[in-house]
């Protein structure tokens, strides 16, 4: 749909006459700010989930506020702001949603998550190597030799800084190996 809106606009710019007709036919969509609408819906969503969860906590009175009082105020404000963002978004466009760099996002977040999963299980050295390999996949200009070089040098640097230098309380080699 976003592509359709863009073509509409280019067309409209090209002919003033068409623009007038177009405004009569589809006046709403042309000014739609999809980014703002999505942001507003997200904010309202967070606010309603928050208000729902907040039912669990005691509100108290204004003079003696319970744990639920401030959250109530905050989430009501958030819902109102979400609404305001939506209302503004109806007219401040056009600003279509952008494509996401899914591949890069998943690989970078995945590399980070892998660190959390592996660090206590197989030690710092192998974990760092894994993070380098996964995250390197996100950049297509990366070469195999480059990845290997980076892996080796980062493992050495991490040992120098964090194990030798700062004395981090982390096992460097896989714990299973050192316990044997």
């Amino acid at each position, binding site marked *: 749909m976003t592509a359709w809106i863009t073509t509409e606009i280019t067309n409209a710019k090209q002919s003033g006459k068409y623009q007038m007709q177009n405004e009569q036919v589809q006046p709403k969509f042309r000014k739609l700010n999809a*980014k*703002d609408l999505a*942001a507003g819906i*997200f*904010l309202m969503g*967070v606010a309603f989930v*928050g208000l729902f*969860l907040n039912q669990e*906590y*005691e509100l108290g009175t*204004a*003079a*003696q*506020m*319970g*744990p*639920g*009082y*401030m*959250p109530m105020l*905050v989430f009501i*404000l*958030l819902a109102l*702001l*979400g609404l*305001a*963002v939506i209302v*503004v978004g109806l007219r*401040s466009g056009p*600003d279509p*949603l952008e494509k*996401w*760099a899914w591949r*890069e*996002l998943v690989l*970078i*977040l995945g*590399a*980070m*998550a892998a*660190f*959390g*999963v592996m*660090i*206590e299980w197989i030690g*710092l050295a192998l974990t*760092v190597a894994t*993070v*380098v390999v996964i*995250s390197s996949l*996100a*950049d297509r*200009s990366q070469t195999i030799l480059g990845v290997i070089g*980076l892996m080796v040098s*980062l493992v050495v640097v*991490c040992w120098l800084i*964090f194990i030798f230098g*700062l004395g*981090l309380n*982390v096992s460097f080699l896989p714990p299973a190996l050192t316990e044997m």
Partner: protein
Amino acid sequence: MLENLALGLSVAMTFHNLSFAFIGCLIGTAIGVLPGIGPLATIALLLPLTFTLDPVTALIMLSGIYYGAQYGGSTSAILLNLPGEVTAVVTTLEGHKMALKGRAGAALAVSALGSFFAGTVATLVVAAAGPLLTDVALSFGPAEYFSLILLGLIVATVLAQGSIFKSIAMLTLGVALGLVGTDVQTGQVRFTFGFFELFEGINFVAVAMGIFGIAEIVRNLENPENRGKTIAKVGSLMLTKTEIKRATPSVLRGTVVGSILGILPGGGLALSTFASYMLERRVSKYGHEFGTGAIEGVAGPESANNAASQTSFIPMLTLGIPANAVMALIMGGLMIHGIQPGPAVMQTQPALFWGLIASMWVGNLMLLIINLPLIGVWVSLLKLPYRYLYPTILVFCAIGVYSVNYSAFGVFQTVFFGLIGYFLYKLRCEPAPLLIGFVLGPLLEEYLRRAMVVSRGNAFVFIERPVSAVLLAIAAVALAAMLLPAIRKKKDEALEE
């Protein structure tokens, strides 16, 4: 004041603190010079390094990192035409043009010398203004404090770029994130979704690193046009006589502009560099050369930038209100050390307060000494391809956040906030207010509750007490002004130009 500065110098000049200030400046510059990494990301990345230190040393090192990162940012702006953040945009305007004319060395030198001078003056401003503001703040009750925090929050958003509703919404979202954890007054655990790791609240380092570090990596990978640019030759660092003559008045003007505007919450830093640039263009008799590499356009804004980065410490140190996201990060770092920044700090921890002020000056001196002779090192760092940089940053981020309390949960939180950061970027929501809201949210709640207990539930207390009423009125005016379309347009133009 002299006595206090002497105390400060005695703290800052110990070998221990000097060496950490030095290390801070050095790594701050090294990371800050890397293309695509601004001061926010640099500090978020290096924050965990300071956790093992005592609070005074940690704060000294953090501020060293901050100045270093600022300065490193100017270097990549001049040599590579790549601004790491908003304030460096101005530096690219004239600085990179000078580099193209073969005077990159002069641009770097004038920026270092101007920054040093501005930093020295601004340090004295901080030393003089700090105690005054602290005295005022100490007379505040909970109602005044609540209004002050509210004012700080609102002003921080109105000066931010983009839609006002979105900025305030981001702020509120930050306050909401700050609610997670144990309610201090009743012991009730809130919004933890059953994770006991969240009882102490969301990990501050994870929020900062996720939103400013991880999300930024994905953004940089997505926009590869920032890479593979040619680096300008540095050339001679010596300034010619005419250059000195032309730059000196600009440095003086920049220092004044920066020192004053830096105290303002919100866009202080960005605002001061832009203001200084505009001023130079108008005042200088070489105004017609602007846009082709006029040295005034580097000297003024760079001095203003550095002066502002010193004076922006004032609201955080004396009132406990961070003026911008960088200060929110530093404040969060202090809170992890168990220090609540605010007016009490100067009395209970004079060594911390004055030690920091003295070390600001020491740090500026160090930057001057480190940066110009080491320029060759920074240039070689600039040549590092991004494909080697980002996995390194990622590994250091992961180890850093893991080492906060040796829990993988912190790493998963970073992943989560990395996703949130990218999501918000795609919806063009500026995340800086979120961080400020997150840091100040718990304080806002505490003072609200205290004020309401004292007033027995009467919400009018905030407008019945004169100081509080004035603060709220300023906040309301600022907010109303930003909703007026005419002013908003002007602000956006000024910020975008």
